[in-house]
């Protein structure tokens, strides 16, 4: 899949997944990668950026096995941002679909 496409949308997918349930990096990477082809390592820069911008916060939590894990959780600010992004995404996707449908139907006429 096109890299530029993915960059913007991954941010949204990450926030949606975290809004459902606080997750640690590995878990999140697996959840994303199971459905979208992505280099898992590139999610960490994204998580860091979202944290810096205060859309996410992190906390450490002990696990039953191994070292404590860093969990990511969505802030109120992040929740608002996510909702904005979802609205934008819908408008965007709708417009792109219209373009595609118009393109396909006009090609068929030829």
């Amino acid at each position: 899949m096109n890299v530029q496409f993915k960059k913007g949308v991954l941010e949204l997918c990450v926030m949606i997944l975290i809004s459902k349930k606080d997750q640690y990096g590995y878990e999140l990477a697996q959840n994303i990668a199971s459905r979208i082809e992505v280099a898992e390592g590139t999610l960490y820069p994204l998580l860091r950026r979202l944290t810096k911008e205060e859309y996410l916060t992190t906390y450490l939590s002990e696990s039953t096995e191994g070292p404590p894990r860093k969990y990511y959780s969505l802030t109120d600010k992040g929740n608002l941002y996510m909702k904005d992004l979802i609205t934008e995404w819908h408008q965007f996707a709708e417009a792109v679909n219209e373009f595609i449908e118009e393109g396909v139907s006009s090609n068929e006429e030829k």
Partner: protein
Amino acid sequence: MKKNDFMTQLSLNLRHIPEVERQDILDDMNEHFAIGLENGKTEEEIIDELGTPIEIAKEFLEDTRFIKEEKKRSASWGTRSILSAIGLLFINLIFVVGPLCAIIGVYFGLCATAFGFILSPLAIILTFFQGDISQFVLTLFSSMALFGIGILFGIGLIKIGKWGYFILMKYFKFNIRVIRGDK
């Protein structure tokens, strides 16, 4: 590639990031490896899923640079843009406004001339009522010629006008860009 090589390469590529932050990034990666191993994956499999250290480092570097630039720009907005606005104001007053007014004046002068030429056939009607045939024929042909010239002139002027407007808008936008400090 094994985990150690991966971490060394990543660390090397992140050398321009402040120590504390770099360590934090490496900790995250260590955690990722630890959990992956717990889940029964090999180091090679985990690295395969992560992508190359260079790719990951590039993303981190892009982000830090981006955030820095945002901060820099918003901080320097105030004084710098006021200074450039004052500078531009003087340059515009001294070098731009005078010639611009002259050019616009000449342009409208030419427009009026073309308009006059286009209206010249009206003279035919005037001379028609005077009854002088030779005068009438002379006016008829000369005004027809003037009419043609006026039309051509007018078309040319409209083209030049559009072009001038375009240039002026470009200059205007350039001014705004300078004041805002965009590149």
